[in-house]
């Protein structure tokens, strides 16, 4: 039996690895290659330009704007998403009244979970369209009419350069919280209740329980979420492409790297240059992920 095992395992591994190699690894390697060329993307011929594309990137003010916006997203999106998701997960699990014995979640726990998770079921462009309609800029728009009841004039939302990126951020967070809520929820429910009850008996308040017990217990999960959310924040392509003016506007307020890659690669016939952007984004993502895992490393708590 033993001699048959290796081919058996390889048989299962091979198709997956082959697909991965052809559709993921090979294009990645090619991107590095094309980033050194002036390839247009529509003709088979191209020439090598060395690091010229990267030098131009350095001077590209639009790329810098995009990078700055991505950085802002990188800071705010994971922080708020994780905090909100943690907070809600905590409430759902141990936020219920503690007057009687034991720790329990608030009433309607399942309902809330479902509600929070709902955006996850919708595809990103659908979410983008829904929110574009909600944030309609005319006085009869959904949000603007509500503001109108309180005598507040029509707000520009996505048409206002000062607000546009925050609107995108809000939708991104709104769409992500549900998933991480469920994730944290699952992690929390695997934590023995006794720990919370012990904390309660020791006189810990809700805030102390959250900060001193919940967060440390969920650290592994939080760490992983952080990396995922960071990658999400470096992308946001679909939301920006569908929701924003231009897209990337107004006044490049919502310009992000992924948008620049798509524009250069497909619209401007500068696939080599776009590949260089892709390489930078790749390196950047890798660096961020490594940094986050490194900084947030802590001792593991066993229970």
């Amino acid at each position, binding site marked *: 039996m033993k001699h048959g095992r290796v081919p058996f395992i390889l048989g299962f591994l091979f198709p997956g690895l082959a697909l991965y190699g*052809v*559709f*993921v690894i*090979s*294009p*990645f390697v*090619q*991107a590095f290659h*094309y980033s050194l060329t002036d*390839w*247009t*993307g*529509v*003709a*088979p*011929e191209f020439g090598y330009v060395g690091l010229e594309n990267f030098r*131009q990137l350095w001077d590209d003010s639009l790329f810098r704007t995009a990078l700055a916006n991505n950085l802002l997203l990188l800071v705010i999106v994971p922080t708020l998403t994780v905090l909100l998701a943690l907070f809600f997960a905590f409430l759902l699990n141990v936020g219920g009244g503690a007057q009687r014995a034991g720790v329990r979640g608030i009433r309607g726990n399942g309902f809330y979970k479902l509600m929070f998770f709902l955006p996850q079921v919708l*595809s*990103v*462009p*659908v979410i*983008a*369209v829904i929110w574009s309609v909600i944030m*309609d*800029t*005319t*006085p009869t728009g959904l949000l*603007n009419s509500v503001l109108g009841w309180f005598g507040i004039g*029509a707000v*520009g*939302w*996505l*048409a206002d*350069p000062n607000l546009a990126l925050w609107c995108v951020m809000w939708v991104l967070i709104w769409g992500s919280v549900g998933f991480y809520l469920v994730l944290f929820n699952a992690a929390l429910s695997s934590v023995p209740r006794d720990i919370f009850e012990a904390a309660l008996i020791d006189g810990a308040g809700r805030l102390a329980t959250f900060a001193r017990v919940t967060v440390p217990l969920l650290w592994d999960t939080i760490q992983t979420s952080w990396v995922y959310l960071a990658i999400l924040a470096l*992308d946001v*392509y*679909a939301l920006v*492409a*569908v929701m924003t*003016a*231009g*897209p990337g*506007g*107004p*006044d490049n307020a919502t310009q992000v790297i*992924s948008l620049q*890659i*798509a524009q250069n*690669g*497909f*619209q*401007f*016939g*500068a696939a080599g240059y*776009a*590949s260089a952007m*892709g*390489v930078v*984004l*790749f390196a950047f993502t890798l660096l961020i992920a490594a940094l986050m895992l490194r900084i947030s490393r802590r001792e593991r708590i066993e229970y």
Partner: protein
Amino acid sequence: MTVPSTSALFTTSSPSSSLSSLSSPPFTSVSRRIFLQRAGLASLAVAGSSVLGSCASGGGGTDGGGGAEKTDDNPFGVEPSDELSVVIFNGGYGDEYATFHEGLYTDKFAEAGINHKAITDIRQQMQPLFNAGNPPDVLDNAGAEAMPISVLADTGQLSDLTELFDAESIGFDGATVRDTLVPDAIESADYEGKPLVLNYALQVYGLWYDRALFDEMGWEPAETWEDFLSLCAEIKSAGIAPLAHQGKYPYYIEQLVFDMAVKHGGKEIAYAIDSLDAGAWQSDSMRMAADALLELKSKGYILEGTEGLDHIQSQTQWNQGKAAFIPCGSWLENEQKSVAPKGFQTTVAPTPLLPDSALPFECTRLESAEAFIVPTKAANRVGGLEYLRIMLSKEGAGEFTKLTSAPTIVLGAADGLDLSPGATSATALIESGGDNNWNYFYDKWYTPMRPKIETAIGELAAGRVTADEFCAQAQQAADETAEDPKTKKRTRS
């Protein structure tokens, strides 16, 4: 040489394509905006197909077909039995007209099989074929995902159409094809002195209004800026916003500003901008036109919140009578067909004249669009040329207008046809404008410049910058383009 393929790094952000169907305006100028939504998906497809393909360097192999005896009836020497592959952008015009043209082709060459393909994702499907040196014989490179035409031209992928333009036209009593076309079709075909692109449909830009509403209210589109302002005041007092625009895509309101500037300063304004001349955007005419838009904004003549609306939303507001005018091209009527209330008469008016304008009121920007190309590496290249000649025949072009109610570049092909109000007024403007009608090319010649100009126009339309700031910002975009080593400069005069 390695196989060119779009990198996977493009797809780190692959979006869903499900949205693209939400709006499918028929023309490049409009629908290209949603191409981004599919772009990520495209790259995946491209990466996949080219990796799996054989060596893509291609290049040799095809002689372009033909070789049969050249006669008056078969001026390019098409080999009657050669198959012809035709790829049509299946957008607002559909592909019924192409089926008709193909019918005319097979009437002539009964043995020729036709490989007809009507698609919307041109780039995704065609890019690998071009890269592999195996493109179709005729490609309608249009729509949201058209390939960058100037790049195709610069990389030598497009056949010289001189032969076609010099050939005898079908159904015009011995005139050459060139003689039957509007001047813009000849000019817009030209890349470095050679005609490479046949832009088949003729788009008419202007300010659109509902003739029925204007008749009812006793309004008439104004010819001078002064009259336009008093008309706006009147419209506003009737509780209607005088002007709406597709604020999410500043391209539309750009048409108003650009047209007023060119009419004031003459076609040289557009020539200078297309040639990337120093200070081209900072002419008095451009500044006055920008100021005019700011005046509309500051007087409250622009629909509130229109800056955040996309083309469908704003045009719908216009259809619902919430705004009197909207800047657009002649596809508007067709695009809004399902939304326009009964009795709505989509009609185009030229933009008003600034004081001391060089051009008359009755003229506008005409754009030949829907780029038909015959790739140099096409297997049946001469068949492709013959197919274009058939498209440009009186019968072929007339049928296109009949089926799509859109004018073509073939003069007089639609004479005597019964057209919709929008198409009728657009056709009338083509004729009354005559040689004063004008066009710009910078957006197609220098694609990276386009979003920068749109950003500047968007800020102007929102009233966040002054006319001077707008001109300076646009000029900066032009200067950056002129200095960009990746961009090929072109001139016009």
